[in-house]
């Protein structure tokens, strides 16, 4: 039972890592009070999804998707890699918009902590 569980974990390590990283990202978004750290959590969650796509595209003993490959050589799938490639660039744009909002929030309320922000907004 334990051995088969370990074997599943060993052969699917990238997916297991992705689940744990998603958990950590989610934890940062829920539990950290600082807005900048929340945004880092969003980024972490994003990278976990990227890891999933890349792990799907991976092929054991293959090579990078430069075609035409030598005969009989396996090549990693280009399609998930393209999706991740564009998603990373869109991700940084999204992070930048979030950071701009953080800068605005600080200019308006003078704090970046979520609990203090709630109090300030409740007082208004």
């Amino acid at each position, binding site marked *: 039972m334990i051995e088969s569980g370990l074997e599943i974990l060993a052969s699917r390590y990238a997916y297991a890592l992705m689940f744990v990283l998603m958990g*950590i990202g989610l934890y940062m978004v829920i539990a950290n009070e*600082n807005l900048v750290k929340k945004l880092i959590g969003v980024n972490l969650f994003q*990278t976990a999804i990227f890891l999933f796509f*890349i792990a799907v595209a991976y092929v054991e003993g*293959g*090579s990078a*998707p430069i075609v035409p490959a030598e005969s009989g050589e396996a090549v990693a799938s280009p399609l998930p890699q393209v999706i991740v490639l564009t998603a990373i660039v*869109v991700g940084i744009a999204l992070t*930048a918009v979030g950071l701009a909002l953080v800068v605005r929030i600080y200019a308006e309320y003078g704090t*970046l902590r979520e609990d203090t922000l709630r109090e300030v907004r409740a007082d208004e």
Partner: protein
Amino acid sequence: MSAIAYSLAVFVLLSAVATALFRDVLSAIVVFAAYSLGMAILYTYLLAPDVAMTEAAIGAGVTTILLLLTIARTTRPSAEEVFERVDVPAVVVVGAFVLVLATLLPDMYAVGTQDAPIWGQGVLSETPTVHYVQEAYAETHAHNAVSAVLASYRGFDTFGEAVVVFAAGIAVLLVLKREVFA
């Protein structure tokens, strides 16, 4: 063989935990840069050099710079203790989330196997992946299949992504109420 992958996975995991727990935002940002770099190496190991380059330049470079600029523009809370208190209810919720996901693990295909449907096994014989790998050079004359898919097969999608990036640049200027950068 995959000792490299395991050690990289452990490194990435540890730096992610450190990012979540450091109380000082500056430390969290620096550790997050290390995390991105570890992730980039992991992508290289998983045969995605294009993605690894992007992640190293954007994840470890530009994201870090933007985060640093933000805390320079706003505030960096002084930290008495090194680590944050662990929020127990959040850990319970997140733990339940991860456990539910983990039940999917036995049903997933092993990493790197060619039995997965994406490789045209089972009922699917002509998948996009198989087509791209076999025909990309003949159809587009580009050696790099990633570029071929990016610019040719999925050109319309890339156009959408580029416009999203363009819109994000405008959105940042709008949020900061700037027409010029000065």
